[in-house]
């Protein structure tokens, strides 16, 4: 049995694994992607890639494996391409990261309307974007990073539309005093993007096209116009992936999984680090991962030395969140016939008649398709204030064979919608 199991091989998980290994613990990492690195280090070149590999060298890594249940305390059930398996642990670090928040607007279900991080992830894994017309929209610093990446890979980035106001960003800018690294980073994005239009107080009203996206209707102040494009990369910030910690019984706070100063959750021996405890960006994820890794392996003194660094990065993250908070007008984008739940094709008019998730699920199946509310959940929370309910296994759709504990046959198709 490994001393420490780390779920999620992004920056926080890798940092945790590295520190736990340094303390002499045996470490196994689990990730559902084909390779380690998470979203931010996906297919990264140069220094970051090498860092990833260095940190991985002394831990065992299982990729392409999804944790779908916790059959007993100290055990996790995984589904891999080869079948299901169980893994036992003494301490557990959950670094399950975050996903993008999507908000419904007319046409947002058309092919080629994607998340901002979504299009970048696809481009990083080989999708050619050369000469493609792209509009990048939504909120947060991710938009700039995505626009720069796409531009550098030959895309014709027509516009970066940030919904936050200029004054909101300027207030944040002042709060950056004393943090030169961040300032340079922020300025670097802007300089790298010279020639690309960057509009504040600007957002998409509708996406149009017959079988796929052809144009986006943009709005800025009282002006609306049509922007012809091949891809719309649109995300309204990030939301933490709390499903697995919730399944294990970890208490949730306002921003994500609640943790103590050693990143330990309300469940003894289970730690959380990175975006899953609240959106904070790469640097906060790294330091949280280090603290969790030390603590999970018993290195409390070493963990304590990093509390100061974590505190300052948290303050920065809080400022970021305030500056880029989604504005009220975004709640009015969806029309009556705009789909909110893309899995079950449930419209906004049908969802908003209800008072909460339970009722809406019973009557409309909203949030009960293959994604299990991971997409519409963030939208509905913003639009109607509904908090997601309790989490039950399987936390991901799995083959029937995995649930039965049998070896799945190759003929048995994965039918996510069939298992609820």
């Amino acid at each position, binding site marked *: 049995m490994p001393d420490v199991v780390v779920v999620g091989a992004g920056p926080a998980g890798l940092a945790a694994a590295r520190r736990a290994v340094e303390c002499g613990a045996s470490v196994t990492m689990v990730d*559902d992607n084909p390779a380690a690195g998470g979203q931010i280090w996906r297919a990264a070149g140069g220094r970051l890639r090498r860092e990833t590999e260095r940190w991985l060298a002394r831990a065992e890594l299982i990729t*392409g494996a999804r944790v779908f249940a916790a059959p007993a305390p100290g055990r996790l059930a995984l589904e891999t391409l080869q079948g299901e398996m169980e893994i036992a642990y003494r301490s557990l670090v959950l670094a399950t990261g975050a996903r993008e928040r999507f908000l419904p607007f007319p046409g947002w279900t058309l092919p080629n309307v994607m998340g901002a991080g979504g299009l970048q992830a696809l481009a990083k894994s080989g999708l050619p974007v050369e000469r493609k017309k792209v509009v990048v929209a939504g909120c947060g610093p991710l938009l700039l990073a995505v626009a720069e990446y796409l531009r550098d890979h030959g895309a014709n980035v027509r516009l970066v539309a940030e919904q936050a106001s200029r004054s909101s960003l300027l207030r944040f800018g002042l709060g950056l005093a004393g943090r030169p690294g961040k300032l340079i980073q922020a300025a670097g994005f802007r300089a790298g993007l010279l020639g690309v239009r960057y509009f504040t107080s600007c957002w998409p009203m509708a996406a149009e096209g017959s079988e*796929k996206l052809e144009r986006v209707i943009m709005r800025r102040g009282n002006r609306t116009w049509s922007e012809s494009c091949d891809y719309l990369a649109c995300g309204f910030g990030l939301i933490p992936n709390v499903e697995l910690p919730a399944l294990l019984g970890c208490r949730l706070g306002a921003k994500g999984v609640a943790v103590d100063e050693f990143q330990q959750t309300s469940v003894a021996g289970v730690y959380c680090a990175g975006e899953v405890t609240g959106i904070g960006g790469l640097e906060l994820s790294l330091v949280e991962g280090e603290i969790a890794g030390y603590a999970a392996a018993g290195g409390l003194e070493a963990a304590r030395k990093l509390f100061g660094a974590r505190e300052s990065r948290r303050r920065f993250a809080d400022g970021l969140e305030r500056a880029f908070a989604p504005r009220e007008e975004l709640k009015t984008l969806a029309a009556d016939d705009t789909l909110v739940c893309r899995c079950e094709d449930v419209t906004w008019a049908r969802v908003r008649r209800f008072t909460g998730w339970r009722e809406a699920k019973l009557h409309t199946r909203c949030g009960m*398709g293959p994604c299990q509310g991971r997409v519409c959940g963030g939208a509905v929370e913003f639009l109607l204030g509904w908090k997601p309910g309790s989490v039950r296994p399987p936390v991901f759709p799995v083959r029937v064979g995995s649930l039965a504990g049998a070896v799945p046959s190759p003929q048995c198709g994965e039918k996510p919608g069939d298992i609820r």
Partner: protein
Amino acid sequence: MPGHYVSTAGRPHECRRGTQECVRHIGSRMTETVELRVNGVRVQAPRGALVSTAVFLAGVAGFRRSVGGQPRGPLCGMGICFECRVTINGREHCRSCQVVCEPGMEVRTDA
């Protein structure tokens, strides 16, 4: 090496920056290709590319139809949304953004 030309997905591409982020470095693995079929059409995908990329390279934007019959394609790019589901080697409902292309794969979309 600004100005060098490399082939990405079978098309010439000019390196714009000559840094470690340029396509040549990102895609040192991508100068090789693997051949697979999407809806019966042969596609050369960069080695290491995901099946979702191969589907786009085949000129397909609609990966599947929703329960109401609407065309859908990838949204999240990271295995969360299940919008990019395709049939791979006869196995239905595979998330194309989570599976790496392999030589000889048979991929079917249903849009």
